[in-house]
């Protein structure tokens, strides 16, 4: 219990750090950021909008820095993230809510898949040391982790979308269709998801395989595995119940953290495929200097990571009895 409390305290500090970063960074920029933004703004600019922006960035206000700071935190706490500039007049909140399901779907499913498949392959690879998988696997996967996500995405587009024309190259769904819950539309969504998902899977699965394999190898050398052999336990049980279960523990935290990175993690893949998720929105915000949107997204991603870590800690407590009573 005390452990959890300490954890929550840590999260509070991290959130505070993220908020503070968000607050101070634009104020560190030279000149009047509000005007700079307005300069890039398309369409008519109302003086009220300009004023609001200036207020948001603390330009020419009579408030002290401290009260601006607390005002900002208060706004965030009550969910007032402001209006998006690029998607004016849509509110930032609305933009985010529209984008989240896409990211959760694509990246969430792929991360889980990569973890499950990767861990399974890692276990098998370590269990059958010297087998084909174990000899070729590691070097191949090591190289795979060095390939940039976005480049794999580009190559996939090149091969499957441009040359072979099997799969679509961009977007979450065919924009000429009207969204509905019908089967053909869902199929269309899935069709658009295949390439980005593959790009993600290919680049992330390698890490899971390698870490699980290395953990398993270390675990297999432990005395309690030897003991399990001595007891005459069947091979499958030793592999799963004695070795894998212990080897998995350190990975759980990593997995949960990667789940947290789901929200922000596939930024480049979404960018390359124009996939309308959170990452794509972040880059749109960046490229168009839509600071309110960008800040809100940054906070959102940070929160997601923290929640994921919390879940990881809970999972570890459930699966590893040592942390439960050790405190």
């Amino acid at each position, binding site marked *: 219990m005390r452990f959890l409390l300490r954890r929550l305290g*840590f999260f509070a500090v991290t959130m505070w750090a993220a908020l503070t*970063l968000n607050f101070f960074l634009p104020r560190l920029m030279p000149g009047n950021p509000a005007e700079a933004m307005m300069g890039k703004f398309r369409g008519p600019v109302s003086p009220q909008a300009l004023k609001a922006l200036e207020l948001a960035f603390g330009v020419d206000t009579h408030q002290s820095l401290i009260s601006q700071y607390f005002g900002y935190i208060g706004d965030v706490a009550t969910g007032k993230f402001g209006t998006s500039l690029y998607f004016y007049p849509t509110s930032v909140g609305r933009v985010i809510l529209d984008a989240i399901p896409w990211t959760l779907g694509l990246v969430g499913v792929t991360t889980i898949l990569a973890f499950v498949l990767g861990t399974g392959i890692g276990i098998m690879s370590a269990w059958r040391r*010297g087998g084909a998988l174990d000899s070729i696997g590691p070097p191949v996967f090591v190289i795979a982790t*060095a390939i940039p996500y976005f480049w794999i995405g580009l190559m996939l587009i*090149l091969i499957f979308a441009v040359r072979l024309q099997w799969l679509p190259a961009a977007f979450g769904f065919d924009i000429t269709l009207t969204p509905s819950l019908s089967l053909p539309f869902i199929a269309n969504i899935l069709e658009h998801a295949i390439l980005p998902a593959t790009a993600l899977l290919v680049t992330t699965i390698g890490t899971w395989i390698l870490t699980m394999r290395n953990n398993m190898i*270390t675990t297999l050398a432990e005395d309690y595995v030897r003991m399990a052999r001595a007891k005459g336990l069947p091979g499958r049980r030793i592999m799963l119940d004695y070795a894998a279960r212990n080897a998995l523990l350190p990975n759980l935290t990593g997995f949960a953290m990667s789940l947290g990175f789901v929200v922000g993690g596939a930024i480049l893949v979404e960018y390359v495929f124009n996939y309308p998720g959170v990452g794509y929105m972040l880059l749109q915000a960046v490229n168009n200097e839509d600071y309110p949107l960008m800040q809100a997204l940054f906070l959102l991603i940070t929160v997601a*990571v923290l929640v994921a870590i919390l879940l990881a800690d809970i999972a570890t407590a459930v699966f590893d009895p040592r942390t439960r009573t050790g405190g």
Partner: protein
Amino acid sequence: MAMLPVSAPAEWPQNLPPPVVSGPARRGRPGLTRLVRAVRSNRKATAGTVLLVLFTLVALFPGVIAHDNPSATIYARSLGPSARHLLGTTALGQDIWAQTVYGTQQVLIIAIGVGLLSTGVAVLIGVAAAYLGGWWDGGLSLLTDVLLVIPLFPLLIVIATYVQGAGTLILVLVLTLTGWSYTARQLRSQALSLRSRDFLEAARVRGERRMYIVLVEIIPTMTSLIVASFLTNALYAVLFGSSLQFIGLGDPNSVSWGTMLYWAENNEALQTGQYLWAIVPGVCIAALGAAFALLNYAFDEIGNPALRPLRARRRMGRRSRKARVAVPVSGMGVSRAR
């Protein structure tokens, strides 16, 4: 408990070898020859080293293999590969081969720069936290963990955006600032576990000063982890640096593989059949990244023999067993006439 004492009492004959006193733990400071041998025997290490050396040579002497000015937009646009332009030209009229070759410089500078800086900061903070303990440890660890948790790429993007058009130096600084926390944690862990080791106690009792202990006793023992940290950070720099350049947050006018991809994407290279423009820089990034990754993994294997490929060991075993038949087998009652 009942361990054998190793003192040498006077009763024993004088010609016996002096007793062995257990000294400080092996320092793990590989001699250069041992290092070279280790690299040659491990295939991954060899591959990684070869790649790295190749890229370094290209970066140091780009003029030797590329004769064009990479930034000059004077050529005909979007040409395919030919004898004149080995990899063709970009949509802006630059020679792709020249760009690739000269681009190596910036990428390597970023990789090694960030690698060294990040590792330096990580060692400083990690070891300080572990050795100073108490409030220092609490504070530094908190700082490390917070930076670790805040999502990396979004943070990079946010900072890079505010900095507006990062040159190489800024890129290196930004990458360092966000990247040191990962390896700092590992270094702190190891330093912590070393803290209680006997040879450190011995140094303390001898009266050595803290700084001495840290510099001369602790850090050399952590050499392999420090090298691994450097490789990890270099890999991270290559990948994330290129990623930032790809979305336009680097300096788009510099010559680098990431910026090449940026322009390729902006000019719809894939859709317009200018494949090489998009493929080549990516392959280079992957190759350099792979070099670091392979070296890192190989270091893991060198340090932990259990991870090495099994087949190699078995093969060795069979070879050495055959050799052994020719050697007399000593033991119980076995004929020695061999």
